[in-house]
Every structure is written in structure tokens, then in C-alpha cells.
């Protein structure tokens, strides 16, 4: 075995040298993109995160803003009436509908109120016009709703507290 190792030792140790190739390869590598590429700022993830943040912010703003408005309206109604009345909210909506705004819901306030057990309906005259009146009884409070003849516009509400 030692003899074979001896053979290896006898191989010419002189190194081969191709100076032109060495210089050419070195220049090629040093001028390659690796050393010349600039760090390009990648805007994509930044844009994506900014866009996403904007969506979140707008969604939160809309959500809380809407919620506040509802709370304030409900609070005011409760204070004004002294009772918690879902009908009042509905009537407010209907009042606003007397302008140019079309009524969105197919079931009108009139339909909702008349379907209740504690409601009485009759015809009457208000402001020299024929009207439909609904009287809703809640505890000791009676609320009178005056609708137009077609029952789609709330003209007036009256709250009568029987305790007083």
C-alpha cells in the first residue's frame, strides 16, 4: 500500500497556471451582477400593507361612526319620551321618508303597528284631511300615530301618559 502512496508522491507537484484564464475569469466575476446589483427597495409589500391598513381604518371608522349615531338617536328618543319605544325610532324613519326619500322597506310602519295586539285602528280627520289613526298601548302610555290615507306617510305622533 505504501508503494502506491509513494507513486502519488512522485507525481509532478508543479502547479499548472493559465494566467489569461485566471485574469479573465476574475474580471468576469468581479464585474458580474453580484457585485453591481443595487439594493432595490421593494415597494410591493409596503403598498399592500398600507392599502390593507387603510381598509381596516375606514371599516373601523364607518362601523363606530354608525354605531355612535344610532346610540345618540336612541338616547335622545329615550330622554324625550321617557320610555323605551321601538315604535318611536321607526316613526322617526318614516317622518324622514315624507321628504323625497323613498320608503325602502316593503313592510311599512303602519303594517308593523297594526299587526300588534295592543293596537287599535280607526279613521279620522287631521288638518282637514282624511287620516288613518293607530293607537298603541304600552303600559300606561298610549301613542297615537296619524298616517295619510294611503298609510305610507306618518303625519304626526302623540304620546299620552295616563299616569299623569
Amino acid at each position, binding site marked *: 500500500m505504501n508503494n502506491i502512496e509513494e507513486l502519488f508522491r512522485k507525481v*509532478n507537484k508543479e502547479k*499548472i497556471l*493559465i494566467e489569461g484564464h485566471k485574469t479573465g475569469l*476574475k474580471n468576469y466575476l468581479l464585474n458580474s451582477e453580484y457585485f453591481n446589483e443595487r439594493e432595490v427597495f421593494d415597494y410591493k409589500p409596503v403598498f399592500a400593507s398600507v392599502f390593507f391598513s387603510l381598509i381596516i381604518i375606514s371599516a373601523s371608522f364607518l362601523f363606530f361612526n354608525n354605531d355612535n349615531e344610532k346610540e345618540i338617536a336612541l338616547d335622545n328618543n329615550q330622554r324625550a319620551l321617557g320610555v323605551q319605544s321601538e315604535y318611536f325610532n321607526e316613526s322617526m324613519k318614516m317622518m324622514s321618508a315624507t321628504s323625497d326619500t323613498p320608503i325602502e322597506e316593503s313592510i311599512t310602519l303602519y303594517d308593523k303597528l297594526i299587526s300588534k295586539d295592543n293596537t287599535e285602528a280607526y279613521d279620522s280627520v287631521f288638518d282637514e284631511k282624511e287620516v288613518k289613526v293607530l293607537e298603541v298601548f304600552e303600559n300606561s302610555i298610549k301613542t297615537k300615530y296619524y298616517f295619510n290615507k294611503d298609510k305610507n306617510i306618518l303625519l304626526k305622533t302623540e304620546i299620552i301618559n295616563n299616569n299623569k
Partner: protein
Amino acid sequence: MNIKELVEKSKNKDKEAFSELFDLYYDKIINYVFKRTLNIDYAKDITSNTFLKVLENLHRFEWRNGENSFNSWIYKIATNEVNQYFRKQNKYKLSIDDENFKELGDFGEEVEKIEKRLENDEYLLVLNKAIKQLKPIYQDIMHLRYFEELTYSEISGILNKNETTVRVYSKRALEKLKDILKEDALFINQN
């Protein structure tokens, strides 16, 4: 600067550091490749591809086996390229697609000198011919151990084999080589 500093600076795209690193390894790699292929043109192409891969993959290199890690890593790339050349033979191609670099191809006098020297280096020719009859893994071990004089630990890193396996393979490879060379006059004269 030591190897570690040169490698780390090269990773950070320091041209001077890479230039120094290249100078340290170019001669080693081209001589290793030349002894394995005995073909000066392919030795140039394999060396070029090796250094190109070094540059492309430098950012992934890690010091897993201490100071010798880089030495093992660069020899590993070169060995893979050599083995690819043996598989593809004439279809092995230079990866550098740059006309200016390709035009550098002819280094007449230098190449002639090397070829002449090779003709006179009968020990290299006989050993190379005999080694080529061994299994590919034995060929790698013989060259890395006896021509490049790398340690078993370094070879184990290059070939992804544990050190004991490399030692066993090395012993078997030498025995096979002895059998192959038995009828060779050169070897008989040594006995």
C-alpha cells in the same frame, strides 16, 4: 485577512475580499480539476463554472465545520462539477454566456506548456488511468486524499459521508488500485 474574514466580506459584496479569495483558490481548483480530467479546455470550463457557482451560492454558505468549512465547500462544488463532466462528457458546457469571456478561450503557449508537461508526467498518467477504473466515490477519495492532500475530515464534508466511512473507502480504493496496477511495469518496479 484570514479565510473567514474574506468569505464574510465577499458575502457583503466586497470586491477586494472576493478578489483575494479567488486568488487563494483558483490555482488549487484548476489543478485539482486538471488532474481529474487531464483536459485543459474542460479544466478551464469546470473551474469557471465552479467559481460562478461559488458566487451564486455564497450567501447560503455556513461555517458548519469550523475554519475548514469554506475549503470543503469549494472542493465540494468543484467535485460535483467534475462528476457532472464525467456524466455528460462532450456535452458539458460552460455556464458563462458572455462573448467577451468566451473569446479569452485560447491561451496557446501556456496550454502547450502544460500539455508537454503532462506527457512527461508518467506517474500522473498511470495513476489517473488506474483511478478512472474505480467506482466514482473511490475516484473522488483518491484525488482528494492523495493529490489534494486533504484530511479525512475535510473529505467527509465534501462527500457527505462520515469520516469512518471515508477511511474505509480510502483503504478499499487503495487495495483496488493496487490490483489494477499489479501488471503495470511502473508499479512492479516499485516493489
